[in-house]
């Protein structure tokens, strides 16, 4: 993938879209919103994914989902390539893969997509993130920026297109 100097904006044609989601009242669950504040271009911040987001996917050349995760060690980051998937219908929440499936059905196609997950330190009832969460958010933003600009992420020798389920520790430089 060629690097570009800036991500394409929606006004110049399809461009990358960032969708950051989580709760601002549960400490490190706000990680995605914090990362989103550091990113240029079209960035959507939500409490949770909803079917209405499918209209934004129609205009995107690339979608980057950002979310906190409880199944990662605190401060670590996972980058996962996503594809539309036939999963059980949602009840009270929707997964990014399900949103891609909906985009495929409604829009005719789903854009390439990645999920950047950050491991939480704590998700207690508070508007204050932990220091680990804040650092993780900054690293997640850096990774998202690399994806948006077409650069390789932290893992040396791993082209973006081949990455699936790679866990990247925040102490690996790039």
């Amino acid at each position, binding site marked *: 993938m060629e690097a570009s100097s800036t991500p394409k904006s929606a006004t110049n044609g399809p461009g990358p879209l960032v969708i950051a989601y989580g709760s601002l009242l549960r400490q490190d669950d706000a990680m995605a919103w914090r990362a989103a504040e550091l990113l240029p271009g079209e960035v959507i911040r939500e*409490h949770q994914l909803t*079917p*209405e987001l*499918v*209209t934004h996917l129609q205009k995107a050349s690339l979608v980057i989902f950002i979310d906190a995760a409880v199944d990662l060690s605190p401060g670590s980051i996972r980058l996962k390539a996503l594809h539309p998937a036939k999963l059980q*219908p949602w*009840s009270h929440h929707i997964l990014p893969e*399900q949103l891609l*499936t*909906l985009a495929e*059905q*409604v829009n*005719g196609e789903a854009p390439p997509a990645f999920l950047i997950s950050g491991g939480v330190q704590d998700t207690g009832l508070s508007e204050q993130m932990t220091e680990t969460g804040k650092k993780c958010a900054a690293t997640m933003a850096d990774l998202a920026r690399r994806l948006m600009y077409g650069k390789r992420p932290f893992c040396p020798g791993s082209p973006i297109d081949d990455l699936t389920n790679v866990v990247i520790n925040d102490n690996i430089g790039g």
Partner: protein
Amino acid sequence: MPAQKIIIDPVTRIEGHAKITIQLAEDGQVADARFHVTQLRGFEKLCENRPFYEMPSLMARICGICPVSHLIASSKACDAILAVGIPPNGVRLRRILNLAQILQSHALSVFHLSSPDLLFGMDAPPEKRNLFGVAAASPEVAKDGIRLRQIGQQIIELLAGKRIHPAWVVPGGVSAPLTEDKRDQILAMLPDGFGAMDRTLERFRHIFFRFPEEMASFANFQSMFLGLTDGAGKLEFYDGPLRIVGSDGAVIADGLKPESYQNYLGEVAEHDSYLKSAYYRPMGYPDGVYRVGPLARLNLVTNCGTPRADHELGILRSFAGSPLVSSFHYHHARLIEMLHCLERMGELLQAPDVLDPHVRAFAQPNCEEGVGISEAPRGMLLHHYKVDKNGLIKFANLIIATGHNNLAMNRGVKQVATYFVKDGHFTEGALNRVEAVIRAFDPCLSCSTHAYGQMPMKLELQGPDGSLLDTQIRN
């Protein structure tokens, strides 16, 4: 055969948590069926001793689908405590917000929750009866539904700052006027909405005719209907006296004042649900059953008051009669109201003084009690507060649309179960129909279970042969 109990838990594709029990007698016929709401919220208690001006934002957190309805009813109760008149443009802006709320909530109910049943049939496999299935089979239907909900939500965001739990509606009016740019953005969305509604009505008019058994059995019984009126026979969602009509269309009571609601509305805590039941006092419990919401609102009026909605109402009445009695027609009523909301928002946004900056009145508490009523998507919503001399809440009572409909929902569940469950045999489709009658009412269970305290409970011990061995009641 021994007596059996069929339990549907959870009830799917509704807002909130509930279960249904169907009791079969020894001959396999339905003896009883009940709708139980299984979630506890406690809002009426947790708001005690809070300053009254916090109530709109606090009460909005009851729900994530219809927070605007609570904002408006709560603010109106606070307006009464302030004893102020709201500037006309503040009222106008509150109306527009309420209409946007109704549009997006109805879109959710029709497209996300009920369209799978309507498009595929009640007997379709469960794995198909969801929005994925709709999107796969009819992408245009899904696209229109998503767009209509998005339009309502975007209008709320443009007016009030955010889509869920906005803080814009306040005691005395709204916190900021509408800008010209936002007005124009909202107006620009409406043609999209009308296009989606035209396509939707064209599709669904024919679809509704495929359900004669459901029309006959979905809470199709005589009841009263309650809601706000404008005093001139047209739809009213924001303010006005209450009217109650019978299933023959005759007016039973008119011009009822919201602040006197305790004279004509009563509430009963049910033994097996966190959802209280409301009833019309003069007729007592449970004979005083009435319905609220889109079906009821259309039964209270001569017409909607906007041309496209009136045309569609005429179509509905031409085949279903007037007043509308079967709760299956809630779906069509919802679509008519969505169309009316788009039309009415267009009218209000083109008023010459919609940009007037005077949108809020200020005062200190001048009254120790206030009642606020509005029409939420699901029906009449009432907030009643009492405050001390410092303006701290001492008492709060909420009657939610779903609570008004509880007696009717329970009767509907039993009617559908009796119709479709026979001789002890039931199919997946039969059980889906029992759920679907609840969906027709579009209950909001998170809103409706707000009382605090131990769940009244009736415990029955049954033997292996189904005989009742013991009963314990905790109230």
